[in-house]
C-alpha cells in the first residue's frame, strides 16, 4: 500500500472521529493534534478504528508514531504489508 493510500485511510478515520473539522488543508508533516481539535480520547479512537477495520495493533509505546500523517504512513506501511493489505 502506498504512503498516500495510508494517509487517506488515516484521514478518513479522522473524518469520522471529528466530523466538524475541515480536513482539506491538513499538512502531512505537522502533528495532527496541532492542526485539529483532537483530544486523547479521539486519538484512542484512531487506534481503535485501525484495530477494527484492518486488524492492526498499535502498542501504547508507539502512539507517538501516529502524530502526523507522514509518520503514520511510515509507521503503518509495514503493518499493512504484514496484513497483506
Amino acid at each position, binding site marked *: 500500500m502506498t504512503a498516500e493510500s495510508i494517509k487517506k485511510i488515516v484521514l478518513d478515520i479522522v473524518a*469520522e*472521529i*471529528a466530523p*466538524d473539522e475541515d480536513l482539506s488543508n491538513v499538512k502531512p508533516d505537522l502533528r495532527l493534534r496541532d492542526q485539529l481539535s483532537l483530544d486523547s*480520547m479521539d486519538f484512542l479512537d484512531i487506534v*481503535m478504528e485501525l*484495530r*477494527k477495520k484492518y486488524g492492526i495493533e498499535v502498542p501504547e509505546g508507539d502512539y507517538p508514531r501516529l502524530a502526523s500523517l507522514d509518520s503514520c504512513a511510515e509507521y503503518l506501511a509495514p503493518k499493512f504489508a504484514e496484513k497483506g493489505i
Partner: protein
Amino acid sequence: MKMLSRIVVTGVGLTAPNGNNIAEFRANLLAGKANISLIDVRYMGKHPAGICDYEKTRYQSRRELRTSTRAGSIGIYCAHEAIKDAGIDFEHFDKSRIGVYVGTTEHGNVETENEIYTISQFGYDTKFWSHHHNPRTVANNPAGEITINMGITGPHYTIGAACAAGNAGLIQAAQMLQLGEVDLAIAGGVSESPGTFGIFAGFKNQTALAAHEDPNKASRPFDKSRNGIVISEGGCLYTLERLEDALARGAKIICEIVGWHINSDAGDTVLPDPVRQAECMRAALKRAGLTPQQIDIVNTHATGTSKGDVQEMIAMRDVFADCPTTYVNNTKGFIGHCMGAAGTLELAGNLGAFEDNLVHPCINIDELDPDCSFPTLVVGKPQKADKVEYILNNSFGMLGINSTLIVKKFNH
C-alpha cells in the same frame, strides 16, 4: 429557624415524542395527538416506543454527538432550551453557582448493550470495547454532559429514582436552592430507555409490555384493554430559582413549587402500594398547607399496566374522595412512559392550564376499566375548569418509590 425561601419555576426546556417545546407539546395534548412509533428493538423485532425528533445539532457539534449518550444529548437540548425560556443572562451568570440535578430511571444500559454487541462481532474480544464506555456509563453522565457543554462549574449529579426521578430531580433542586448551595438550578429528568432492549425484554417477560397494531393506540392507561407500558425517551428540565432572586431580575415566573414528598412502599419490588401512595400525596398536601379540595388538576402516573393503574386509583379515591372540582388526567396515552422524564414532562404538559384553565384529557380510553373509574377523570377531550390554581403531579417507580409534587399558579 430561618424562613426558607419560596422556590419558583422560571423556564422550561423539553423534548417529548409529540413536541420539542412546551407550546408544541401542550397544543398536541389539547388536540389529542399521540406520537408513538414502531421501532426495531435489538433481538426483539418491532415494538411501539416514543421517540423524540429534537434538533440534535442545535446545541452540540457532530463531534460531541459522536461520544455523547442519548440521555446526555437530550439533557443538553433541554437545559439550553430552559435557560433560553428563562431569559437568564447566562453568559454573565456565575457558573459556579448553578446546580444541575437530573432524574434518571436507569443509565448505562444502552451503552453497555451496545458495547457487548460490538465485541460480539469480534468474537467477544474485549480489546474492541470502547474507551468511551466509562464516561458514558457513569451514573452522573447525563448531568455531567450538560455541565461540560455549558461550562457550568457548580454541582451536578443524577438522581436515580426509577420513574419517580423527574419529580425527585425538582425536589432536590428546590432543597439545594433553599439551603443556599446554588443560586440557579437546572433540574428535571431525562430518558434514553428505548435504546436498551433489556428494558423491553424485562417488561415483556413481566407481562407488562404494551402491544397494539396501531402504535398510537398502544399506550392506554385506565382502558379496559390496556396491556402494558410503551417505553419512551424524552427530557424535561426546568430552571428553578428562589422567588426573591427571580423577582429581582424581573423574571417571568411560571409557577411556584409549594409542596412535595417522597416515600417508600417498603414492600413489593414492582407492585405499587396504594396506602403508601396516598400517604405520599397527603404529606405533600400537608407541606403545601392545602386540602385535597384545593387541588384543581391531578396528573396521574398510571402507565397502562393491568395492576398498577388500579392500585393508583385506589390511592386517588382515598385522597380525593370528595373533590368534585379536582380534575384528573394522564399523559402517557400520548407519549408512552418517558421514564426518568415522565414526572417533569407530564407536569409541563399541564402548566398551560394556569393560563387557559383547560385540563388536557386522557386518550385511548375506548372502554374505561370500572376499576379505574374516577368521577372527574378527563377522557377524550379537554375539560374547561372554572379556575386552575394548584396542580398535583404524581410519579411512582419500581422498588416502591413514590413522589408527589404540587405547584401553584403565580400571580404577579
